[in-house]
């Protein structure tokens, strides 16, 4: 009993709760009353058509854009409207849709900056990211300039940088976009790796295979509202979801 209570308390510390999050740009409603909870170790998929508000959701949670309403709580602490660097230091870190590295810096400098800026510099930080650098084949290219790397590796470096910042919650904005099919399993590797270390992950993604593989639970955004929430098999077979977004392809996939 006691162990459970302690476990819940520890879990509470790192739990991300989004409550009634709303964002309007002038008269344009981009997010309307979005609520969800991300417990430690959770993997949540966020899907929806282009313009549904997926990236805006990440921008608002990480303090890049102030919300028009609603709250964001990390372990019960209200982090709504805090600046990006503060949110990041608290452990909510994002990756970017486009490859986002320090282009003219080497792989080593990139990682070293991520460790330093997040206040986790030193051997400990390097030990934490070393397995990822190894797995993605970046370990042997530490002195290469990051924008000279193949696109897929730049993308994986971007994910590694986000993890280097020692997150409790990772928000991944289309981690597989632009990757070749054969490279996409690296995203799986990444997510499994960070999750095994207690990180919770929110993944915005268009690759439905990847979403099905990785996410036990997904939410579907459409025009800023949550259209559906639940396990992917169930949600992706709903007629309204298919109509809104997934279209004929996925329906065929489901049938097959």
């Amino acid at each position: 009993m006691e162990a459970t209570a302690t476990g819940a308390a520890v879990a509470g510390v790192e739990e991300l709760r989004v409550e009634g999050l709303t964002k309007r740009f002038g008269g344009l409603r981009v997010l309307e009353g979005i609520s969800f909870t991300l417990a430690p170790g959770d993997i949540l998929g966020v899907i929806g058509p282009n313009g549904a508000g997926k990236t805006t959701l990440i921008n608002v949670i990480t303090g890049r854009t102030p919300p028009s309403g609603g709250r964001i709580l990390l372990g019960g602490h209200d982090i709504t409207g805090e600046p990006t660097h503060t949110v990041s230091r608290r452990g909510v870190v994002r990756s970017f849709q486009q490859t986002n590295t320090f282009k003219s810096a080497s792989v080593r400098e990139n990682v070293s900056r991520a460790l330093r800026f997040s206040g986790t510099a030193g051997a400990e930080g390097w030990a934490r990211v070393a397995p990822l650098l190894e797995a993605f084949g970046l370990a042997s290219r530490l002195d290469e300039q990051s924008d000279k790397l193949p696109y897929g590796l730049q993308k994986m470096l971007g994910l590694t940088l986000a993890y280097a910042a020692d997150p409790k919650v990772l928000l991944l904005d289309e981690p597989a976009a632009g990757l070749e099919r054969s490279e996409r399993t690296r995203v799986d590797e990444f997510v499994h790796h960070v999750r095994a270390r207690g990180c919770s992950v929110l993944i915005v993604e268009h690759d439905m295979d990847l979403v099905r593989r990785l996410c036990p639970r997904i939410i579907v955004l459409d025009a800023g509202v949550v259209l559906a929430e639940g396990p992917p098999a169930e949600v992706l077979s709903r007629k309204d979801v298919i109509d809104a977004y997934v279209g004929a392809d996925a329906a065929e996939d489901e049938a097959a």
Partner: protein
Amino acid sequence: MAPEPNLAARSPSRWGAQEWVAVAIFVAALAVPYATEDLLVHSIVNRVLIGAMAAFSVFIMLRMDLLSFATPAFMALGGYSAVLLAMNGVTEVLLIVPASFIVPALVALPLGALVLRLRGVYFVLVTFVLTEILQLIVFLTPGLTGGSDGLAGFPAPTLLGRDLSDAQSVLALAAAMALLAVVITAALTAHFRQHFAAIEENEVLAESLGLVVWRYKAMGFVVAAGIAGMAGFALGNMLLTVHPTSFGAQQAVDTIVYTIVGGRGSILGPVVGASLLVTAADFLGNQGQYAQGLFGLLLIFVTLVARGGITGAVVTLARRLRDARRTPDAPAAAASEAAARGGA
């Protein structure tokens, strides 16, 4: 092969060869007033030192990809503060030099809170306006600043009671301030090299990894203002007057050209740029308008052809020569590398 943590532990804030060379140049400049009595040499070296100081101010902001036109405004604040102190009986350089740094630095703090959230062309425009506004304030406050007449005939600075009004001392004082400026600039830009580079390249990423971007921008802005202030005092001390026309937009343009033509990527850039362009302008003599034309053409040339300026081009060339020497069969190696890349 796993990356060894000790590979990562190389101190990134250490001074490189360029910082040491820059400091050595200004140490050498201290000897110039005593090595020659040629007043033309004194005049050129003095103007180079002032130009380089002002260019360091621009250089610091460019490390964070912010092109500042506010340098003359801070020069004016430093220059007028020092001269007003001298006119009120404080002539000791150990007091008025720090004052010429601190006054603009203090003004930069609240100004920075307003303007440092801007980027790109907006930052350029607002800093340009700051220079215009400060000049206007000078014109509108003749009681304090002498207005359009400027302030002249102020007592010469002294060092521990010793009068510094002779030509040698004027140049030596400028050299000492320039040495201070280069040491401060080198210390700041080397210590925060990784932070500034991250802000220059990808501010959004740096912030999302936890870097408190505004803090570094504010620090850079404040120090840049202080260094500009010292340049302003050195200029007033050389001209024996502080005058609003010394601190206008033209001064901002000249200073930026020194930095960009010299090379914005190295602390030697402002030094090389100021040395060459001040001297070149001097050779054109009274035909001042040709100097402006020359600066304009050089700026266009550098922006189009050699983004790293003169120092950038030299570094690239040196690197190429070194690589060519390492691999005697360089063309073949390059060709095979290109082929491999094409095949990949």
